[in-house]
């Protein structure tokens, strides 16, 4: 059996403007299916995006507080109790994909007034620092308090960069975001562990290594994956710190 051209078959020659009638109909139908199909695919793909959560910059709610900058081991601002509000500890990030280690080193141990914009998602708040100035202040009443150890935990979840996950990018998590998160952490943004179970009602943690020191490249292969890892949890005011023992980490999926 072989195919052969026939005298009556419509024959299209691109540079002739006249297109045989049966072909015009066929091509018109094809064009409609092509455009319509693309439109439908776009609607299906776009309308079923996964929920990136409720994180975001709180532009209307500027942050300005006096407190102490500490490295735990990432920069945090500790704000004393004020009337009914208990003492709080805020994670800090710089503009873009930068940390605030320089400011924290420069002002370590002395009171500062810190301005910035909160990035917030549920209980997780990170401050994008705008400016840090030395402040006149006296702290009393046992401030700042020591970290309270909460024992050893095995947690499952994802290591994210704290700023994107808090809502600087939506969605700021997941494998597609891995390279971006790597870049954030390299720039000095604190990593957070987003756990699927909670410890005392909290399910995100500022991360440190098992000695409470800075994490480095050993984090990279685990970032943005669903993992299980053991470590000690301690509480700094309202912030949980997870001293993860990465040698126990296991990728679950």
């Amino acid at each position, binding site marked *: 059996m*072989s195919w052969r051209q026939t005298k009556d078959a419509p*024959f299209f020659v691109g540079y002739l403007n006249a*297109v045989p009638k049966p072909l015009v109909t066929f091509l018109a139908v094809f064009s409609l299916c092509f455009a319509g199909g693309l439109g439908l695919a776009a*609607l299906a793909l*776009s309308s079923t995006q996964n929920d990136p959560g409720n994180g975001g910059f709180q532009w209307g709610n500027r942050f300005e507080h006096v407190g102490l900058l500490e490295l735990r081991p990432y920069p945090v601002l500790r704000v004393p109790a004020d009337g009914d509000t208990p003492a709080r500890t805020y994670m800090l990030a710089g503009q873009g994909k930068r940390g605030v280690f320089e400011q924290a080193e420069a002002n370590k141990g002395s009171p500062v007034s810190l301005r910035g914009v909160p990035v917030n998602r549920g209980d997780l708040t990170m401050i994008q620092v705008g400016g840090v100035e030395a402040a006149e202040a006296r702290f009393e009443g046992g401030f700042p308090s020591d970290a309270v150890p909460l024992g050893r935990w095995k947690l499952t979840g994802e290591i994210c960069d704290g700023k994107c996950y808090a809502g600087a990018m939506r969605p700021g998590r997941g494998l597609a975001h891995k*390279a971006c998160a790597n870049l954030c952490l390299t720039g000095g943004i604190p990593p957070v562990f987003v756990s699927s179970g909670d410890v005392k009602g909290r399910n995100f943690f500022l991360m440190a290594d098992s000695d409470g020191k800075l994490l480095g490249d050993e984090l990279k292969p685990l970032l943005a994956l669903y993992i299980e890892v053991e470590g000690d949890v301690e509480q700094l005011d309202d912030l949980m710190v997870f001293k993860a023992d990465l040698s126990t980490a296991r990728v679950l999926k």
Partner: protein
Amino acid sequence: MSVQYMPVIWNRNKIVYDAVLLIAVALYLYVYIRVGPAFEDVTRPIDGAILRMRAFGSCAFLMLTVILCIGPLARLDRRFLPLLYNRRHFGVMTAVIAAVHANYVLGWYFNFSPTDQYVALLSSNTNYGQILGFPFEAFGIAALLILLVLAATSHDFWLSFLGAPIWKALHMFIYAAYACVVLHVALGALQGPGDPIFTALVAASVVLVSGLHFVTGRMEAKRDRGEQTAQASLQEQGWVIAGDLDEIDDTCAKVVTLSDDERVAIFKYDGKLSAITNACAHQNGPLGEGKVLWGCITCPWHGYQYNLADGRAPAPFTEKISTYRLKLVGSTILLDPNALPPGTHVNPIEFGGDS
């Protein structure tokens, strides 16, 4: 068949083709970016830059899928042939859309950092040893580079500059690009939280592209086997029985397969017969599936033309293809399987009558 290379020679068909393409792409992007989000069920919308990046990425992927289906579809049903005519514009547009996708990625995921964007793209994730968390961007980069090279060399100038075999081989890399894109999404977007629709679409694309190529491959193989009679029937003096006069429609051809890469088209016109190679000098289009228009063989792909008696394109064009000698015994056509040098004049066989 152009003596002089114009950037693009426009005519109504090309304009309509490109218009349909542009409208479909614009519709896709508009629906994805503007209409779709209104139907999303999310606490807060995803970032605009990410939405646009996904819109352009998935658009390029779907366009690539359609491009790769046009070839086999045109083999299965000749009515798809006109889609092949302007396919290069389709390819160039796909490369542009993919480049926009990559640009959004650079300007969002790899921006706002002390590290240079391009350095960040290549250095942020280097976990090449793991499957989960593999730097899937690398496959995207490879695919984009291929698409850009193919787009840049798509013009006929490059075809004649590089020569058809090299140009063809180069453009076969479109399949490598497709494979890279599939890996790019399989190791990236598809590993994220379950997205059944995108997963189904990617799977459908892979099945469609490979399925159509498989089916047409089988079909061509079967056709060639049917033609083996011609090979097997080598007669004394080396003539091959090419078939019967009545098998061929007027102004049309019959294709005889001599070997895997040698096919001969025997044309019937004005009570005469002429034989030429089946491969067009332009892009190896199947001349035997063309027709005789104004006394010239006309290729079904892009309409290149050749004189029947000597296989030379009419002046001022200079393409030449091989011719073959024929003999008629009764109504049986005999073919001399030895190709003559391109452009050799052979007197057509006259069989009288204009049937």
